[in-house]
C-alpha cells in the first residue's frame, strides 16, 4: 500500500498501462518534460521516450485528429486536454469523427482513444479553467463518458479506460488532484467494471447522485445531515454514459427522494437526463420530484464568485430539504 494523491494515482495507472501495452501513447500540450500543468504525466516521457509521450503543437483539434489516425494504425493514444474550457476546438473531431467513425465503418474500425479532461472549479482560476462540459459528451452517441472522484478509482478507471476499445472521455476532478488515499497497486483484487456506479455511503431517507468533484461534497453533506437525523445515501455514478441504471433506480425506489448534484450549469445539464430517466421509471416510488443542485445557468463566474456558483454542502442540503417539502 502507498499513500497517493489522485494525480499520482492517474500517473501510476498510465505508467502501468504503458508498461503492459507498448501501443499506449500519451499526447498533449506540455505532457512531456513538464509532465502536464498538473503533473499528471510527470516522468513518463523520461521513462518511455518522446515517441510514446508526445508534446504536441498547440491545437486541440490536431491532438484528437492525429490521435484518431494513430488509433487507426493500431495505437492507443491517451490525449490530455489541458483544461476543460479548451476542449471545444476539438469538438468537431470528437463529435463527428471520434464518436461516429466506428459506426461509419460498420465495426471495421475501433478507436481506443482516451481523452483526459481536468474539469470543474474551486481552484480560483481564470476564465475557461473551471468548467464542467460533460453534457456535451453524454449527448454525443458513440462516446463513453466517465468521471473519477478519488485516488483509488482514478488508478483503476484510467487503466480500464485505456483498455476499452471504444473512445472514452475521462473527466478528472481538478480540485481533488491533491486528495490522498492508500492504494495497493500490487493488489490483484477484483476491480468493479468501468461503468459500474458505487454506493459510497448507504442511506435510507434520500439519495444523492454525484460524480467527480461533487462526490466528496455530497459525502460531507450526508455527514452533516446525519446530525439532523437524516440518512442520505450517496452514489458515485463514476460512469455517465453508459449509466448504471439498475443501481441508481434501486436506490431511488428505496429512498423515494433524489437530488442530483453537479457543477455544470443545471439547464440541460446531465442532471436533467437523470431526473427524466429516474422519474420515468420510478414514478410511483417518488415522494418528490428529482431535484437538481448544480451550477447556475450562466457562464462560469470570476473566481471570487465561484463559492457562490458551485453547489456546496448548504446548497445540497437545501435541495434535500426541499424534497421533504413535497
Amino acid at each position, binding site marked *: 500500500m502507498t499513500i497517493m494523491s489522485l494525480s499520482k494515482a492517474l500517473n501510476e495507472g498510465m505508467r502501468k498501462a504503458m508498461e503492459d501495452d507498448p501501443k499506449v501513447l500519451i499526447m498533449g500540450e506540455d505532457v512531456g518534460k513538464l509532465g502536464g500543468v498538473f503533473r499528471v504525466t510527470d516522468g513518463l516521457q523520461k521513462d518511455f521516450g518522446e515517441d510514446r509521450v508526445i508534446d504536441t503543437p498547440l491545437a486541440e483539434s490536431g491532438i484528437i485528429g492525429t490521435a484518431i489516425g494513430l488509433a487507426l494504425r493500431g495505437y492507443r493514444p491517451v490525449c490530455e486536454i489541458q483544461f476543460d474550457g479548451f476542449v471545444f476546438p476539438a469538438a468537431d473531431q470528437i463529435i*463527428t469523427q471520434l464518436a461516429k467513425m466506428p459506426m461509419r465503418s460498420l465495426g471495421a474500425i475501433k478507436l481506443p482513444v482516451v481523452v483526459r479532461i481536468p474539469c470543474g472549479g474551486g481552484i480560483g482560476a481564470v476564465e475557461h479553467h473551471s468548467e464542467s462540459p460533460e453534457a456535451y459528451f453524454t449527448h454525443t452517441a*458513440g462516446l463513453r463518458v466517465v468521471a473519477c472522484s478519488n485516488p483509488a478509482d482514478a488508478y483503476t478507471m484510467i487503466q480500464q479506460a485505456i483498455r476499452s476499445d471504444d473512445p472514452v472521455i475521462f473527466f478528472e476532478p481538478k480540485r481533488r488532484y491533491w486528495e490522498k488515499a492508500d492504494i495497493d497497486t500490487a493488489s490483484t483484487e477484483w476491480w468493479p467494471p468501468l461503468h459500474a456506479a458505487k454506493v459510497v455511503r448507504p442511506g435510507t431517507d434520500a439519495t444523492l447522485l454525484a460524480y467527480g468533484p461533487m462526490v466528496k461534497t455530497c459525502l460531507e453533506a450526508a455527514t452533516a445531515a446525519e446530525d439532523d437525523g437524516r440518512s442520505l445515501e450517496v452514489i458515485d455514478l463514476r460512469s455517465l454514459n453508459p449509466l448504471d441504471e439498475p443501481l441508481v433506480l434501486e436506490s431511488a425506489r428505496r429512498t423515494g427522494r433524489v437530488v442530483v448534484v453537479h457543477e455544470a450549469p443545471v439547464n440541460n445539464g446531465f442532471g436533467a437526463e437523470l431526473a427524466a430517466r429516474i422519474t420515468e421509471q420510478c414514478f410511483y416510488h417518488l415522494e418528490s420530484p428529482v431535484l437538481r443542485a448544480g451550477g447556475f445557468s450562466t457562464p462560469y463566474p470570476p473566481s471570487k464568485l465561484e463559492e457562490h456558483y458551485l453547489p456546496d454542502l448548504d446548497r445540497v442540503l437545501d435541495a434535500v430539504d426541499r424534497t421533504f417539502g413535497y
Partner: protein
Amino acid sequence: MTTEASRGAEAPPELVQLLTPEGERVEHPDYDIDLTPEEVRSLYRDLVLVRRIDLEAVALQRQGELGIWASLLGQEAAQIGSGRALTDVDMAFPTYREHGVAWCRDVDPVKLLGLFRGVNHGGWDPKEHNFHLYTIVIGSQTLHAVGYAMGIQRDDASAATIAYFGDGATSQGDVNESFIWASVFNAPIVFFCQNNQWAISEPLEKQSRIPLYRRASGFGFPGIRVDGNDVFACLAVTRKALEAARTGQGPTLIEAFTYRMGAHTTTDDPTRYRVASELEAWKLKDPIERLKAYLFKSEHADQAFFDGVDGEAAQLGADLRRRCLAMPDPEPLAIFDHVYSESHALMDQERAQFAAYLEGFAK
C-alpha cells in the same frame, strides 16, 4: 478579380506537365516517367472505367436509386495517376469524391454506392484495402492521415500516407493543423489537393489569393503544382513525393490543377454560378482524350484495344447497376449496431424497446 486567370484554361507556367492536351509527350527537368506500352494502356483503361462507373452512378441517382452522387468527371487523371503511384503498404485517406483512387485500391465499386444509396455510412474495410472510408466533414481526414503517418514512423515501417482534399478544404483549420503536425514531426505523408477550381459555387479566389501549392512554403515543406489532367505527370510527381516520404524526407503538398466538369453533386446546379465557356475550355484538356491521342500517335494501341476497353466499360456499368439495385436495405435494428464495439447498456435497452415496439406493429 482574376477569376479566369486563377482557374483559367491555359496552364500556369509553374505546372508540371508530361503530356500536353494534344497528346504530345513533353520533357520536364525534374520529373520523368518511363512506362511500357502495356502500362500506358492499363492507365487508359483505368481512366475509362472509372469514368464509366461515375456516369453509371450519376444515372442511378437520376433514376432515384441513389440519394446523391459526387461526380469525379474531369478528375480521373489526378485520381488514377496518384492512386497508381501508391504501393500496397501505403495508406490513403479520401474525401467523398475519390472513386478513382478507390478503384486503384481494389475497392469493389458497388461498395462505394452504399453511402450514396443510404444503406450505410461507409461500406468497406479500410484495413483490407489501405483505403480509409470517405470523409464528408471537409478537411477532417487530413489530421487522421498525419496521425496514421506518425504511426508508420513509430512502427519503423517503410510506407507512406496520402491525404486527399479539395481546394476549398485548404481553408479549414484542420487542414492547416495537419500541415503543422506533418512538418513538425516530419511525417511520411503526401498531401494531394485536387484543385478542381470550385468549392460548390465558390471559385478558388474565395479560398486563396495565391496558387495553393505555395501554401506548403509557409509550413516548411515542398509544394508543387501538377497538371491534374495529365495522368503521367500525376503519377510521376506523386511517386516521387511518396518515395521522399518513405525515405524520411517528410511531407509534400501536391496541387493537382484540374477541373470539376460536372456539378458539385447531383443536387447542384452549376449554371447558377459559372459560365459555360469555362467548361468548354476545359473540355479541350480532357484527361482521357489526351491519353487516347497519345496512344494513337505512339501506336501503342489500336482501335481494337479502344473498342475492347469500351466494351469492358459498358459491362462494368451494367454490372454495377444490377448489383446496386440488388443491395439489401438494412434492418431497422441495425440502427443500434456498431455504435460501440463493446456492449453498452443504453444501446441494449433502446434496441430491446424498439424491437418490442416493432413487434407490436407486426401484431
